[in-house]
């Protein structure tokens, strides 16, 4: 196997003036070199740092990297566009501005007793999965095998087939295990094309793995935002208008995630006006990142709502209850199921703790409690398919070409099949991760793996169960539909039982093959996920240090398949949100547009010492309208409300209004000074 290294633009905006590959081609171990013109993934113009210019494959990674260093590139530097507001003014946008309006926004403002406005900002964030983007490409005859770390093997198959003009099934994509993606690995990406082309030219398998530095420049990011938002309400808290202008720094490409989504969907409000701009800048492009748009938008919306509650003198939880949406806010469709009120009810005792928490404040450490609500998709959808094979030993094998991105999907699928077949979990094996060894399956993105795949697996297991029972009913001369599978046995209503193997044993080398497909989502209904988080914080008002002492999370995602796995998703979401809230930020050189935080030394992920006590609860009520399973996804919901809940707790503790992420000690101190100033000015003169 050969190893590849890529020469990339060190500039945010530049053009190749001259390129000399002669020394690189002659370097020890080099077997293939690609330059612009050889492959679409290489270009002589760089519109962002990290743009690939040359790729080298050599016998070892060290040789490849050494050869890459021998590539001589003469760059002509060009002026980079880095300011998102300037990009909007100049019309440098990815796609058109997205405008949305319902009701009469101006009328809603006019009817209000209170109007609050604020500008919120969020930072650029890197995904930092443990495993960087990487693949091994190997040509076999006229077909190509791609071993890859991906969230979507079928998407990779189609992307690579299109790049090389191959029939899709000539590309086989394999992903047995992988080290996380968080949305950054939803497709193939140029690096796979490079590896495949290097493999084609060298006639050898080629491994191309991004280094951590390459990953933190070009591996995708959650785009920064500037959100100017307004909320208006009657004195009783009824929202009369919500509005916002959202500027999203997408970089050179990507897509405009719905930052206005929470404002449009979360609370009942007749009059809403939003406009979103995707600023096209000379920076690496964004990629989907765990609830893209909704994480950023919920931060602004839910902080704004608490500002409004303070203005109106209303309890923040009560304000949310008074604006509860009973039908979809955008088109009036009924929800397939919605347990947000139940989430509010269960959150209540945790919200009530605020009196006791505040009472533990002292001169230095001020304590408070804040909450934020959450809405997201996560219903999944068709198509997805699964097969369930039952052998003569009564063991089952679930076969489907999905991927387990580290969320425990294999286990969840085994649980579903085991329950349907009435056999123990350890008698079910799950085979995933190979596009030529199983039917089409969903992307593992958008919290959709479980709600898309689970129903297909359940249907396949039910199909296998039905076939087994038909044979049993014939053999034991029972009426059709009277027998069932339970505890590894075939059970008759009269109490007679037979070991499952008594029927499956008849198969000898034969097998029962059950097939299942994911059915449609309920027509005319909106399928969404909901939740509430309550944060308890302590703020050191002298140094600005914030300690998050406890986070309570309650989420409604329909039926819970694996309680431990579900809790892990909630904990993982909250821990990632701790980083988003306090320590993580990609820093760019403000003049050159190059990324300064390329390593994990500079880009600060949260450590275990930053993790608060996390208390998780799930409503766990199957969505009766949704598929044969009633389950929704939980990958994204838990990261959505955390930052706003924390900021609202800081407000509760100190009166300080924090408006930008990450929250730094200096911002806390500045916000505290502003809060004191407001109090001084606003205080009635004695």
């Amino acid at each position, binding site marked *: 196997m050969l190893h590849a290294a890529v020469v990339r633009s060190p500039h945010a905006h530049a053009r190749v003036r001259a390129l000399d590959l002669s020394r690189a081609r002659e370097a020890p171990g080099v077997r293939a070199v690609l330059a612009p013109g050889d492959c679409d993934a290489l270009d002589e113009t760089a519109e962002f740092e990290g743009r690939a210019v040359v790729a080298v494959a050599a016998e070892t990674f060290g040789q490849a990297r050494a050869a890459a260093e021998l590539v001589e590139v003469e760059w002509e530097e060009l002026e980079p566009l880095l300011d998102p507001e300037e990009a909007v003014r100049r019309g440098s946008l990815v796609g058109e501005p997205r405008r949305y309006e319902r009701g009469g926004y101006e009328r809603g403002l006019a009817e209000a007793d209170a109007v609050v406005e604020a500008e919120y900002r969020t930072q650029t964030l890197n995904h930092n999965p443990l495993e960087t983007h990487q693949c091994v490409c190997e040509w076999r005859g006229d077909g190509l095998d791609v071993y890859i770390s991906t969230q979507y093997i079928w998407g990779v198959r189609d992307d690579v087939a299109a790049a090389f003009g191959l029939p899709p099934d000539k590309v086989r994509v394999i992903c047995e295990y992988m080290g996380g993606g968080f949305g950054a690995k939803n497709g193939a990406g140029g690096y796979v094309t490079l590896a495949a082309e290097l493999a084609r030219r060298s006639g050898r398998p080629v491994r191309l793995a991004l280094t951590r530095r390459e990953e933190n420049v070009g591996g995708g990011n959650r785009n920064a935002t500037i959100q100017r938002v307004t909320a208006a309400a009657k004195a009783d808290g009824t929202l009369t208008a919500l509005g916002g202008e959202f500027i999203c720094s997408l970089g050179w490409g990507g897509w405009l995630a719905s930052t206005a989504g929470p404002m449009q969907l979360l609370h009942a409000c007749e009059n809403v006006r939003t406009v979103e701009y995707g600023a096209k800048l000379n920076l690496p492009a964004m990629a989907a990142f765990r609830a893209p748009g909704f994480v950023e938008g919920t931060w602004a919306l839910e902080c704004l709502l608490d500002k409004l509650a303070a203005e109106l003198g209303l309890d923040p939880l009560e304000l949310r209850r008074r604006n509860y949406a009973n039908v979809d806010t955008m088109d009036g469709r009924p929800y397939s199921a919605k347990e947000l009120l139940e989430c509010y009810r269960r959150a209540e005792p945790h919200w009530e703790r605020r009196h006791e928490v505040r009472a533990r404040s002292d001169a230095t450490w001020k304590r408070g409690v804040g909450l934020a609500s959450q809405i997201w998709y996560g219903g999944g959808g068709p198509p997805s398919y699964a097969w369930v094979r039952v052998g003569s030993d009564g063991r089952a094998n679930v076969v489907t070409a999905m991927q387990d991105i580290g969320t425990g999907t294999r286990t969840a699928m085994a649980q579903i099949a085991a329950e349907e077949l009435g056999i123990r979990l350890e008698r079910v094996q799950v085979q995933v991760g190979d596009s030529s060894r199983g039917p089409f399956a969903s992307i593992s993105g958008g919290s959709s793996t479980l709600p898309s795949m689970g129903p297909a697996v359940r249907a396949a297991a039910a199909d296998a169960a039905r076939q087994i029972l038909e044979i049993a009913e014939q053999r034991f001369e029972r009426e059709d539909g009277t027998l069932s599978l339970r505890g590894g046995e075939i059970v008759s209503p009269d109490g007679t039982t037979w070991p499952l193997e008594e029927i499956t044993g008849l198969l000898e080398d034969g097998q029962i093959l059950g097939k299942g497909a994911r059915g449609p989502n309920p027509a005319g209904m909106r399928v969404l996920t909901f939740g509430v988080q309550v944060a308890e914080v302590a703020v050191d008002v002298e140094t600005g240090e914030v300690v998050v002492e406890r986070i309570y999370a309650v989420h409604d995602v329909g039926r819970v398949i694996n309680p431990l796995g579900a809790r892990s998703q909630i904990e993982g979401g909250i821990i990632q949100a701790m980083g988003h809230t306090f320590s993580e930020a990609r820093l760019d050189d403000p003049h050159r547009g190059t990324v300064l935080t390329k*390593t994990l030394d500079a880009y600060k992920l949260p450590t275990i010492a930053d993790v608060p006590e996390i208390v998780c609860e799930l409503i766990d009520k199957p969505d009766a309208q949704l598929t044969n399973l009633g389950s929704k996804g939980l990958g994204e919901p838990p990261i959505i409300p955390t930052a706003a809940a924390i900021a609202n707790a800081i407000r509760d503790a100190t009166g300080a209004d924090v408006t930008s992420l990450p929250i730094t*000690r200096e911002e806390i101190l500045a916000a505290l000074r502003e809060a004191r100033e407001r109090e001084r000015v606003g205080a009635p003169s004695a």
Partner: protein
Amino acid sequence: MEVLTPRSLDEALRLKSENPQAVPIAGGTDLMVAINFDRIRPNAVLNLNEVPELRGWSRANGTLRLGAGLTYAEAMREPLAGLLPALAEASRTVGSPQIRNRGTIGGNLGTSSPAGDALPPLLVAGADVVLASVRGERRVALGEFVVGPKRNALAEDELVTAVELEPASAAETFMKVGPRNAMVIAVVSLALRAGEELRAAFGSAGPVPILVRAPRDDADAFPERVAEAAAPIDDVRGTAAYRRHALRVLTRRALDRCLA
């Protein structure tokens, strides 16, 4: 890259004198980062891990001698932690357990970073740095040893072999502000010893760690004096204004803790 591994101090000093360009390595917690980041490409490293004379600590005539190879984990252990509580507290804030098992006091001195966590506690303890070469041994006060950001008084044939200091006869403490709760370079750090004389030393708020002294009676004005002595800069971890403010707050808190 050549790796020189002496088995005794004499051999180490001879090798250093013959290969002045060889970079000393003990735990490697600074050096390996620099190499990984391609900031330096040494032709040779001098591996000090097999030199027994650099290990451990001892006490003679009231003076403590810490070998350059003393790790942070060792500095956290009793009875040494009781003799130098501020150094023990500082050591607890260094990196992760793995880093604390590998990183050494001598390495922190050799690197001479203004953010070196061990330096403020050593400064308030009146530490002398023991330097040795084939030419002999000399002692330099820590305040004179560090001469600039990552620059020190080591001659090219010299090694740091130990620090000598007074055990804490009075209350002392260490505090640190960082951008997250573990594995960080300090935004600002402070060590305070409150004996007959008040001594405070801080890191990350000037080109070198700085020692400030005052009579015990001047405790009220001391936080301001410490803040004024700082020469901080704005960087990605924090602004100069915040660092000065934090120093003032930390000094007052350290005084409250030590004078209580």
